[in-house]
């Protein structure tokens, strides 16, 4: 157990350091959310005037959605790095060492969570700059971040599972493109749930992205519904645990195939 923790820290350190060596990547990963926040936020500013939308300002409504979406997208691609490590023999090098097996996945997830926290804070600040208000305060921002990071960890684990099973960058690209954007649109990231077509509302009920957005938005509201926030957070935690278990199982399949 102590091995798992120390090795996970070493691996996290490795991934995080390598990420910081590519500052360009950090910037690029923030371009998309900024575009959504600024352009989309401005373009659909008047959408809140539609009866039944249920929010006063679109930027207030959109910012938590963009936080969740950003964590979702960076997590969705995290399997790419694992494929690269497998191809270069990095994973095999650690498998013939005493390094804890679980740390090889866990280190990636912890690094993903750290990046998620940083990205969330940056977007929340950007939101403030363009006029978003967070009546829920620090507690609300923390709740939003926790939900976004839980979602990201689960999706990151799934992405690693797909990476280790397919071991092909092409498959990874195809799956991510096929899944990430639809998942976003099948939630209330951009549009109030009440105004979505009925079938989309039904699908959204089972969509972890929706759980994270709803909980985060509620936490930021003037009168947060903490029962709802905690409930959704619980679901997200279960989702993350199941995905992590799947990733470990996928990793065992890989080890057997060597």
């Amino acid at each position, binding site marked *: 157990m102590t091995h798992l923790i*120390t*090795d996970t820290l*070493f691996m996290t350190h*490795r991934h995080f*350091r*390598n990420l910081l*060596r*590519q500052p360009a990547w950090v910037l690029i990963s923030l371009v998309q959310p900024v575009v959504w926040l600024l352009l989309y936020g401005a373009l659909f500013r008047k959408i809140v005037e539609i009866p039944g939308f249920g929010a006063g300002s679109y930027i207030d409504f959109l910012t938590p959605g963009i936080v969740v979406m950003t964590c979702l997208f960076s997590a969705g691609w995290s399997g790419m790095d694992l494929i690269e490590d497998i*191809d*270069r*023999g*990095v994973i*095999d*090098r*650690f*498998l*013939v*060492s*005493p*390094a804890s097996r679980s740390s090889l996945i866990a280190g990636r997830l912890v690094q993903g969570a750290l990046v998620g926290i940083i990205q969330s804070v940056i977007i929340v600040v950007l939101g403030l700059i363009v006029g978003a208000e967070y009546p829920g305060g620090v507690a609300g921002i923390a709740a939003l971040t926790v939900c976004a990071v839980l979602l990201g960890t689960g999706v990151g684990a799934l992405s690693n599972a797909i990476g280790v099973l397919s071991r092909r960058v092409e498959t990874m690209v195809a799956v991510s493109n096929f899944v990430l954007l639809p998942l976003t649109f099948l939630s209330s990231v951009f549009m109030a749930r009440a105004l979505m077509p009925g079938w989309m509302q039904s699908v959204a009920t089972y969509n972890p992205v929706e759980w994270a957005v709803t909980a985060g938005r509620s936490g930021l509201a003037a009168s947060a519904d903490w029962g709802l926030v905690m409930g959704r957070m619980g679901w997200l935690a279960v989702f993350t645990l199941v995905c992590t278990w799947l990733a470990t199982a996928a990793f065992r399949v890989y080890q*057997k*195939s*060597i």
Partner: protein
Amino acid sequence: MDDAIEARGLVKTYRGGVRALDGVSLAAETGSVFGLLGPNGAGKSTAVKILTTLSRPDSGEAFVAGHDVLRHPARVRLAIGCVAQKSGLDLEATGRENLILQGRVYGMRGSVLRSRAQELLERFGLSEAAGRTVKTYSGGMQRKLDVAVGLMHRPQVLFLDEPTTGLDPEARVDMWSEIARLAGDEGLTILMTTHYLEEADRLARRLAIVDRGTVVAEGTPDELKGELRGDAIVVELEEQVLDGEVRRALEKVPELYDVAVEARTLRARADSGARAVPAVLAALEAESVKVASVTVSRPSLDDVYLRHAGRAFSTADQEVREP
């Protein structure tokens, strides 16, 4: 224990029915270089994967540094260093960072960790490059760092899977002297796979020739070469001829044996190559077989391989790819 590496009857079949190993047994004496020689796809890498606990055999058993590979993989892992065919270096990290992380997963900490990393960087001539990311290294530098990473925790047994493949001649010679030094001064047991006959001949105290998943010959390079009587004669013909035709023609030549024809190449052995060549040429001419060139050489591992695997090394090398 005299043998640092011991394997008996290793069998491994991959999904899709590829039988990579079909009963491989070998033994490497402590403190020596053991060469595993064979063409691509012979099963060398699979054997290394099993001995280094990366992969499990379908049957058979193996002991490394006295530990059972199947029952106590964790003990084996602490005792071995492994330099795989695919480098496994973190290209985004510096040379020093690669060494430090490697040391850490083996439980090394603090000044012991840092001074060992420094020692290896100096020893492999990488001190100046230590702070640069590995992606800026040349192929030879990366391979040296690979070996340094494998040595970080002072293993008793070192596995080198094709350590010189892809290196330029200069870097290859460098690597050779490094391997010789490790086994000589430091008493490491080294198992090295290679598909360069010259390399095995030069470095290995004992070697096993692997072909299609089985060991076809084992011994010291001299023993193996000594099994072959006389010189090798290789005749390149101008056009392809029927095996039977040539054999009939050569039956009349005295002291000629082990005749084999492959495409346009004819190989044979004779106690004295110099004496046999004129007779061979005369016999071929009598059958109107046109000769492009003739070479006579002392026995080499190439001939050993030919004798045991029934085909020339270069032919086998092109036939299959490593799974």
